[in-house]
């Protein structure tokens, strides 16, 4: 059972900033929030991960409010090559027998020229 809810699809234009919001109302104390990008015919590629507040790396930023019931992936100045499916996942990274990630349906981001 997927633990996250995100829009099915989004459209954008080259050079724009894109924000994809994910809802995870039942997030557990030990859960981290992870975003993956997937192109057709390829495996998911790790983008960014966070627990709370804001995380930034060379490709994206992740904003997590204090209640952690949602998160927003921000992609600055997208290009055509950013057209892909983006998955938001939550998972218990605090140890235990299984540390699996549960994927939802993802958000198909279509970037147009």
């Amino acid at each position: 059972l997927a633990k996250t809810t995100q829009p099915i699809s989004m459209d954008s234009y080259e050079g724009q900033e894109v924000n994809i919001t994910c809802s995870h109302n039942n997030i557990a104390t030990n859960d981290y929030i992870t975003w993956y990008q997937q192109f057709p015919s390829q495996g998911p590629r790790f983008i960014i991960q966070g627990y709370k507040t804001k995380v930034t790396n060379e490709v994206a930023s992740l904003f997590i409010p204090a209640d952690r019931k949602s998160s927003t992936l921000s992609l600055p100045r997208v290009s055509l090559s950013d057209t892909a499916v983006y998955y938001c996942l939550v998972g218990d990274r605090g140890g235990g027998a299984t540390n699996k990630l549960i994927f939802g349906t993802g958000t198909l981001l279509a970037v147009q020229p």
Partner: protein
Amino acid sequence: GAGVSQSPRYKVAKRGQDVALRCDPISGHVSLFWYQQALGQGPEFLTYFQNEAQLDKSGLPSDRFFAERPEGSVSTLKIQRTQQEDSAVYLCASSLGFSSGNTIYFGEGSWLTVV
């Protein structure tokens, strides 16, 4: 290698045939996962190994599916008597450990088509 390696990349099997899919995780990675991804869907968890121990096989769809990782490195997913509904991409993933902050890295997948 630098990433998770899977073979074969593409496999066409006749219904009823047995198939074996191989995964070479990133060197030193303790955790290994198998996922199944149907066309247009997100990946679905199949099974999880910590070293050679299979700690979770709750996602395996039937007893025709079997996975092993005998020496705690390379893993094989075996599907016996393949059916058309087994057609999917099978993704292998690995992570350095199982504690907080460990990133899970995916391979490119093995595309299985059962005809």
